[in-house]
């Protein structure tokens, strides 16, 4: 189930200048972009799309994408206030992706890996059949090739518009990871903003090593639901990367500029 609460992080709006949600300062858009979409003033990590994520992690031109054209045929004929078909078409137009994940083979600082990246701008990065299939395929390829696996999560959870099929992707991806684990593969999960619900409760949490970007929202149940159920205010910093680190569910909080070198050196320890 996709969480859609408390998302302070927005796409970088059009225009030369933009206001950073972290420090509230007006910052020069180009400087943010050149800085891996991190605020040069306060290090606030803006959301990045799947393609940008891949581009900033891999060695130039080394990415070889798997299953690039997979898409959902809207298996349930789902519609709420808007039809799923329309939502998909809108998201495809906005992101230039067919669905919320990009997977493939790549090199990171010369180390061969299988890499997955999710796109929070595509229907909240929610996981339906396509995301589940792509992630599973990536895990299986990593198992066959004996390569380390890196998945950058960014998701509101399971995609409601595919009903039980979406929930089943949690089981599918986790089962594939069980085999990968058995085969001795290294899986580095990177939790980026937001990593929640069904993705957190499946492959998101199953990393041998779990990294998180600073300030990312990470949690299972949406804060609004918890607030309503508990009838109380939530503690400061609840369900952030730092909160998860403090409670022992994240190994390292890693700034975006260090992600490449962190992954590379962790891979070296575990090959």
């Amino acid at each position: 189930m996709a969480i859609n609460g408390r998302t302070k992080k927005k796409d970088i709006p059009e225009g030369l200048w933009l206001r950073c949600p972290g420090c509230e300062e007006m910052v020069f858009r180009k400087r943010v972009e050149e800085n891996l979409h991190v605020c040069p003033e306060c290090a606030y990590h803006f959301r990045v799309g799947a393609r940008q994520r891949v581009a900033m992690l891999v060695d130039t031109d080394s990415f070889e994408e798997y299953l690039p054209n997979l898409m959902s045929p809207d298996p349930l004929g789902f519609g709420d206030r808007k039809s799923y078909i329309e939502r998909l078409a809108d998201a495809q137009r906005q992101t230039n992706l067919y669905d919320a994940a990009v997977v493939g083979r790549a090199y990171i600082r010369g180390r061969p890996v299988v890499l997955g990246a999710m796109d929070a701008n595509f229907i909240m990065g929610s996981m339906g059949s396509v995301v589940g299939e792509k992630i599973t395929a990536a895990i299986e390829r990593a198992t066959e090739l004996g390569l380390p696996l890196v998945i950058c999560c960014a998701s509101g959870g399971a995609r409601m518009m595919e009903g039980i099929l979406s929930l089943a992707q949690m089981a599918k991806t986790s089962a594939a990871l069980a085999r990968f684990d058995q085969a001795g593969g290294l899986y580095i999960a990177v939790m980026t903003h937001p990593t929640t619900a069904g993705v957190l409760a499946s492959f998101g949490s199953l990393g041998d090593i779990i990294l998180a970007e600073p300030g990312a929202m990470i949690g299972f149940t949406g804060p609004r639901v918890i607030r309503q159920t508990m009838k109380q205010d939530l503690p400061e910093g609840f369900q952030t990367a730092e909160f998860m680190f403090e409670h022992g569910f994240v190994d390292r909080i890693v700034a975006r500029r260090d992600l490449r070198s962190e992954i590379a050196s962790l891979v070296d320890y575990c090959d």
Partner: protein
Amino acid sequence: MARACLEFEKPFAKFEEQIRQLERDQRSRNVDHSAEIRSIRHSLVAMIRNTYDALTPWEIVQVARHPDRPQTADYVAAFVKDFKELHGDRLFRDDQAVICGFGRIGGEKVAIVGHQKGRDTREKVACFFGCAHPEGYRKALRVMRLAEKFGLPVVTFIDTQGAYPGIGAEERGIADSIAVNLREMALLKVPIVGTVIGEGASGGYLGIGIADRLLMLQYAYCSVITPEGCAAILWRTAEKAPDAAEALHLTAAHLEACGVVDEIVPEPLGAAHRSPREMATTLERRIGRRLRELKRIPTDELLQQRYQKLRCVGVVVEADKH
């Protein structure tokens, strides 16, 4: 004992009251109403059958949540012999939203894992209304590992609206506990027979929901999220839950059609809560049959089949390349 009554069950109550009155009259005045009683009973049965044949998905959700619907503990009491409940996750506490233990079903030694919602208010509070904390999932995994160690098949009962939505659950890693169960259950070296007995919603269901054979009671439902939760997010109001229930395709027939559920277990006339004993007898027989079936499959093949079953769920197409 007065039975809780759903809106669409109210007409049944009227007939039942008529029958009771005639029976009373028969006794007190020593007259014979048997023909009339038979005729009303006939109409009642027809009415229940017609009503239940035409239930909307949202009404099915109501049946799945019926206050008198049998729960895990009721099935355990009905057909699990010599049940030895096992408590605690060895890490934090005993979560009563998940019942675990050893027992015998039809002479077969098994491990039992099931959500428990609780019947009266005190029980419901103690069981968190069937919404498990990480401790519940970790206890379940501990007992499943015991089952694996001693070669006992695992029998699960699924009945939850989801994992517990609270601060403590988040602090102690509710997502981690579910994810780990998904991974570990995928490779558990003993057969798993699961049954969705009431509600099977969200990751809270899936956390004990991996199975080699998944059964589903006729009026249970299974969904990525409760209809209210879905409506609150997509329609922006929980009042649209009936629409969400329709859109989510959460009924047993849909679940069987998409390959998640292997077998629909028929319920007695008017659903499980009207004849819990009959329901238990049917379920015991069906579970027993599946256990015998799985026992014959070598472990390697069992795990291979389990993987394929999980692997093949989902519908994707290749986009037209422009």
